[in-house]
């Protein structure tokens, strides 16, 4: 059986096929991340929907949630629900509210161990949420595959936060990225995506609690800022 050249060319035009050197175009457009530089390098032009996105980080508190907040706020504005499964610390309601996430659309699920992956699977399979954030420090490849399958009925993005040490593990997630602190922003390394791996990390200016950071050269000594101890 021979395939004519035109038929081959035609099949290469399909949106679900991509050549290694080219960024895949997705039939389902992604959720705009709020960072044009990031959208440009994500297949589908934003965070993928109905698929897993794995976020690896060695440290907490570097701006990992602030990176996702513009996208999540957009989902909530369209009347969608956001769930946080097994967050490592309690969510501070006033801060989430101040960051544009109305609390009436936010659900927190406390789970431990194997129950965490189970809870995620139930939530994804229900298709009732718009976005899911989950912290899974001890998930294995088999469970990841189950989640990837369940997320097919989920209309929005799924972010799985995992320790950086597990980035080497095999995973069915089509988008995997590492977050690191950078001197003037957040360094995002897309080490797996539908397309060629990104050569250099992307430095994004995420929103910080304080407008400007004074350079180290002009650093004031902490002593000068030291408060008067409360008697």
């Amino acid at each position, binding site marked *: 059986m021979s395939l004519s050249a035109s038929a081959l060319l035609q099949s290469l035009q399909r949106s679900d096929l991509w050549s290694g050197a080219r960024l895949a175009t997705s039939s389902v457009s992604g959720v705009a991340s709020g960072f044009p530089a990031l959208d440009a390098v994500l297949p589908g032009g934003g965070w993928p929907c109905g698929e897993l996105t794995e976020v690896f980080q060695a440290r907490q*508190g570097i*701006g990992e949630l602030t990176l996702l907040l513009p996208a999540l706020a957009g989902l909530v504005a369209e009347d969608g629900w956001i769930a946080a499964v097994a967050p490592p610390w309690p969510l501070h309601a006033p801060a989430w509210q101040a960051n544009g996430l109305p609390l009436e659309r936010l659900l927190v699920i406390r789970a431990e161990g194997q129950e965490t992956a189970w809870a995620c699977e139930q939530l994804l399979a229900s298709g009732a949420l718009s976005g899911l954030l989950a912290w899974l420090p001890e998930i294995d490849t088999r469970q990841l595959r189950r989640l990837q399958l369940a997320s097919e009925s989920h209309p929005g993005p799924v972010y799985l936060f995992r320790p950086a040490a597990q980035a080497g593990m095999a995973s069915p997630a089509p988008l995997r990225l590492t977050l690191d602190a950078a001197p003037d922003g957040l360094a995002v390394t897309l080490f797996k995506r539908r397309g060629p791996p990104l050569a250099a990390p992307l430095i994004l200016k995420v929103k910080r609690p304080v407008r400007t950071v004074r350079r180290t050269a002009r650093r004031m000594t902490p002593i000068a800022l030291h408060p008067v101890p409360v008697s």
Partner: protein
Amino acid sequence: MLWLALRFPRLAVETLSLPPPAVALHRGRVAVADEAATVAGVRSGMRLAGALGLVPGLIGRERDLAGETDALHRLACAAGEFTPQVSIASPDELLLEIGGCLRLFGGLPPLLARIAASYAEQGFARQWGLAPTPLAAQWLARCAPVDGPPPALVDDAKLRAAVAPLPVGVLAVPERTAGRLTTLGVWRLADLMVLPRAGLAHRFGPELPGLLARALGEVPDLRPPFVFPEHFRDGLELPARVEDAARLLFAASRLLAALAGWLAVRCAGIQSCHLMLFHEGRPPSRVELGFASPTRDPERLQRVLRERLDRLELVAPVVSLGLEAPEPHALPGTNAVLFGHGGTTRLAPVVERLRARLGPEAVHGLTAVADHRPEQASRPVAEPAAARSSEAPSGPRPLWLLPEPRPLAEENGAPCHEGRLRLLTRAERIESGWWDGGEGLGDVQRDYFVALSPQGEWLWIFRDGQSWWLHGLFA
């Protein structure tokens, strides 16, 4: 009027919940055989020994007439899910007036499909017939195949033609009358309908022409409606001692179906109910079923029950079950909507499942409280709702707040967290709470700062009188 007659031909054996093949006996003879036994050739009226000869592994148990009456009442209660007008025709038939609720269920085929699914799930074989008069529907049901396809719609014009080919056996008249009809050469209702009524009344008494007149709608046929009980409390004897909680599911699901029907008739929903498991010589154990919002959806009830039973350890074998519902909440039916309510209706069932397995407090929403002390400003709530205070906090607040402040090391008076921290803001003084020192967090006097660690972590730290503390992360 459109009457659906439901006949449960194997009610006697299904009530006993025996593993197939099984028969229900009456005075040593087979009264009703289940599907497996019927296929093997067991017929009613056989002696048990003869039936055992056909099916060696057959289980026979004396039929439980009181149990059958209870089961029929339970089935009538479950039918409340479809129509409020139900009546019982003993010993094994139900009549449902469905003419008034066709539109609600989107027409006749979807309604019949739901009815069939509901009884199949409860484990009852059914025959059904559809006619404008209750008696004709019963006759059609008695001749319909077991678990057969949906019956054809029979209107007034076609009624005569529809019942004509039925055998006279459907009349359920005394044996003597039936024998005399056969002697006359009357085999089918068509033969009977052509005979003059006056002559029939003269020969057989007034009952026989009366039956025909009622079935054909010539005289009214009044059926006593099934009266739904004021309070729901139902119990079920188990055929054998059950030691595995998962095996209770089937029996309990029959009780739940009855509860769902009862709630539908009362336009009510329940937020909790309890299942009692009775043991021999021990106090009963109680299983609470809780729901996120008042409900009467049988699927939601079943799902929560399954989740609870899966994780239940029985303290002793169970001999019978009881289901009690507290005073129900009013839950009017919803109007059909064009657009969804932002997925809320789909979210409630999954939240219930999570709560059933992880515990009721494991799934919660958040609310912001107008309190300056950070620990008090965020509170979990069972139902996510819009925050009452929209007042923005006076300074930057972190997305994560540690449940307990963590002490920080100090180096020359400067706080350290894997290296010296850089303070990026002026002090934000929080001094509040002197009034609830007794039980709450109490009086706090803290100066908060946003700090940046050498590794690039954005932290929220404070200093109280003595030392530095880490309290949050700007994730």
